[in-house]
């Protein structure tokens, strides 16, 4: 009897290698390459398995009308990515190799990530490259890439791929394409018609509302007028220790009122009139979902959500952690937590902590409310790194391991105290806080933020010496800017995007130049683009429609809604928006082109010219000589001749500071492999005397 061939489709080359190794009876699959596309031959249970990797999505949704100047377009289809995207030409050989390898197979197994994207990309490959094999393919479901789980998953194959998830995934791709392509085309066509130039302007179903959050916050900050108020800054001395105290009224509307308090209390002793002590338990943190991991990594390491997501993905591919793109905050009983802890105990730095937990009869995690039908929360697999991890991977793995241990631990016992000190009828509060029993905090060190304020023994009626009492001039503050982490949280709270796409959308806002800096400040281009969209197509930046579509997609996934109905509904809503945009194409184009031109100009502006005082210093690339230099805009009007040479090789960028000696701008110069050098642009700056 001929050996049965099984075609196993994985998401990436690294997962294919791991799956092939796990499934091969001897753990030694044969690696082959066809046209530089790797695939593996393994044997299991008398069957020959051909394990093949995709390269992420090999198919994409593209409009049937390919002319980029035409919109609206409502007819879309799946096409190979190499047909639709210039930078995806490499994927052509992958499609060919996959198609060829699938030909001799009698059985098909989808082993991509078990989520909406993994299922969708697998479905399109099985359907279009393998010849409609989507209907007969079986499914491997796993949350870690450990050998045990992969083998178990292969032994318990799902009879078919998850069609309702795929319906939702396909719907998401169609909606994103329909919105993204039409709106971006409408914007670029309008701008091109006015300026004659092709400008990269984009918006999208989720990108538009996300930028709007930032724009609204930017407007609040930039139009903020602070109002004055006064507060009392006071401290007391007890047993030689100084403690800050809080005046009963944190804000006063006049200086006189604050001064009256200071005058009444200055130099006087206070008396403790009340002591309130509270003991309370603080539960351990809940297991990590992706959003919580991203927030914690930003808070402790300043890693952007995208960076954390990428690091977690690498740890998953190394089989060190479970699948990270999850919304779950649960650790189901099917996970052998005890075995994981036993394995982690082999790592010296976790040994004593793991053993402490293992000494407990029962391990009960403190789970959160978050659920995910596809995966549990993020947890360490128990595998230890086979080679030294890079610094970012080591930090994130450590964070995940410590969090995992903390969730099984006991609550911490804390005590808070509020001591009321009365001085001449005025009340001040002294706050103390103290950890009495560390509980889970021992396991989560050093990722603990709490700081103790331990008060000495105090009793009612005790006299307290005042150390300082003074008036503080204060002003109300504007709302804080979003950072990549808080913006991601806002998107989550508003229910737009998915755990897989949010970080990428934030990245796009930065790449497009709509947003800049760690504190996500909106550029003028971002403001102008949102302003134009709000004026001509407010629905695009409104959150309600996007949220409604997200809900519909969830319903598709749960089998309560049909993909075609949702797509049709979205098209009906989009069509009048595009008609309106077309009607205003000329004015919209003018505004967008001017905004883009202004943004390009601003990018080149380094600062004001100190020589003429009116012009701006810009980086100029001479068309005649091809050289770059810093020149004054007044030159073109014949008003100023200020110009400075810049290095002609490497990267040169302004650092946003001026020279402390002469006041002209400072630049950073860097060539590959060398340390950056910061210099004053003025060649004859006195600061360079020593070098000459």
């Amino acid at each position, binding site marked *: 009897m001929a050996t049965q061939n099984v075609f196993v489709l994985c998401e990436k080359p690294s997962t294919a290698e791991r799956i092939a190794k796990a499934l091969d009876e001897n753990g030694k699959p044969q690696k082959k390459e066809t046209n530089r596309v790797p695939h593996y031959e393994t044997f299991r249970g008398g069957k020959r398995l051909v394990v093949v990797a995709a390269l992420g999505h090999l198919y994409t949704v593209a409009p049937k009308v390919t002319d980029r100047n035409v919109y609206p377009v409502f007819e879309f289809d799946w096409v190979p990515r190499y047909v639709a995207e210039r930078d995806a030409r490499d994927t052509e050989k992958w499609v060919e190799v996959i198609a060829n390898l699938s030909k001799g197979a009698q059985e098909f197994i989808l082993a991509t990530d078990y989520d909406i994207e993994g299922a969708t990309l697998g479905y399109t490959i099985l359907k279009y490259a393998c010849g409609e094999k989507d209907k007969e393919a079986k499914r491997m479901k796993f949350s870690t890439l450990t050998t045990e789980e992969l083998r178990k998953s292969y032994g318990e194959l799902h009879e078919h791929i998850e069609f309702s998830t795929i319906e939702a995934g396909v719907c998401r791709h169609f909606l994103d394409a329909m919105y993204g392509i039409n709106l971006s085309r409408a914007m670029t066509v309008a701008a091109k018609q006015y300026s004659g130039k092709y400008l990269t302007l984009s918006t999208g179903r989720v990108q538009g509302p996300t930028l709007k959050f930032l724009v609204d916050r930017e*407007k609040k*900050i*930039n*139009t*903020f*007028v*602070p*109002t*004055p*108020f006064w507060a009392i800054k006071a401290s007391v001395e007890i047993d030689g220790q100084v403690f800050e105290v809080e005046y009963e009224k944190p804000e006063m*509307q*006049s*200086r006189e009122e604050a001064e009256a308090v200071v005058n009444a209390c200055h130099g006087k002793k206070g008396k403790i009139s009340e002591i309130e002590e509270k003991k309370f338990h603080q539960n351990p943190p809940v297991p990590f979902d992706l959003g919580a991991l991203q927030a914690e990594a930003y808070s402790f390491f300043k890693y952007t959500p995208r960076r954390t997501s990428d690091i977690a993905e690498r740890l998953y591919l190394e089989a060190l952690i479970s699948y990270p793109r999850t919304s779950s905050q649960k650790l189901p009983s099917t996970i052998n937590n005890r075995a994981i802890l036993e394995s982690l105990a082999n790592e010296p730095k976790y040994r004593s902590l793991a053993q402490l937990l293992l000494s407990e009869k029962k391990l009960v995690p403190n789970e959160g409310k978050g659920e995910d039908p596809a995966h549990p929360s993020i947890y360490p697999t128990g595998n230890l790194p086979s080679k030294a991890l890079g610094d970012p991977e080591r930090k994130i793995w450590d964070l995940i391991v410590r969090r995992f241990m903390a969730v099984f631990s006991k609550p911490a016992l804390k005590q808070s105290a509020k001591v009321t000190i009365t001085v001449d009828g005025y009340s001040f509060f002294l706050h103390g806080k103290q950890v009495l029993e560390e509980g889970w905090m021992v396991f989560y060190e050093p990722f603990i933020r709490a700081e103790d304020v331990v008060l000495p023994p105090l009793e009612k009626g005790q006299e307290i010496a005042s150390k300082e009492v003074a008036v503080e001039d204060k*002003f*109300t*503050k*504007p709302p804080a800017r979003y950072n990549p982490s808080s913006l991601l949280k806002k998107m989550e709270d508003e229910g737009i995007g998915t755990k897989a796409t949010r970080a990428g959308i934030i990245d796009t806002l930065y790449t497009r130049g709509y947003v800049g800096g760690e504190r996500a400040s909106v550029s003028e281009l971002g*403001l102008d683009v949102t*302003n134009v969209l709000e004026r001509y197509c407010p629905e695009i930046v409104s959150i309600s429609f996007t949220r409604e579509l997200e809900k519909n997609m969830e319903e598709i996934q749960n089998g309560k809604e049909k993909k075609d109905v949702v797509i049709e509904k979205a098209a009906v809503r989009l069509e009048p928006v595009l008609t309106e945009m077309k009607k205003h194409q000329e004015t919209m184009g003018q505004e967008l082109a001017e905004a883009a031109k202004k943004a390009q100009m601003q990018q080149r502006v380094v600062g004001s010219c100190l020589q003429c005082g009116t012009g701006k210093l810009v980086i100029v690339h001479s068309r005649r000589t091809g050289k770059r230099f810093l020149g004054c805009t007044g030159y073109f009007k014949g008003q100023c001749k200020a110009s400075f040479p810049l290095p002609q090789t490497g990267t040169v960028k302004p650092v946003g500071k001026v020279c402390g000696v002469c006041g002209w701008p400072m630049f950073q110069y860097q060539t590959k492999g060398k340390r950056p050098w910061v210099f004053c642009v003025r060649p004859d700056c006195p600061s360079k005397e020593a070098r000459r």
Partner: protein
Amino acid sequence: MQCGICGGKSEGSFCELHKAAYDNLLKNYEAWKKSMKVSWTEYLTHIKVNEYAGLWVKEVAQHLLATDSSKQQGDQKAESDK
């Protein structure tokens, strides 16, 4: 019309964004007048250098201080305050 500050499109003296900043300046003057006892001009001078004041607010304050008509307007405002 063009905004007197940024040159952007406007229906009055200011574009939409600078108008919003100007409106906030007007709205909050009462609170400043009451607690700091400052004239309109003094108020604008404070705002111009306040670390928490928004960028567009500062631009409007700077613009108003530099414009003669605004000084007159401010003086009139100060007079009426008395």
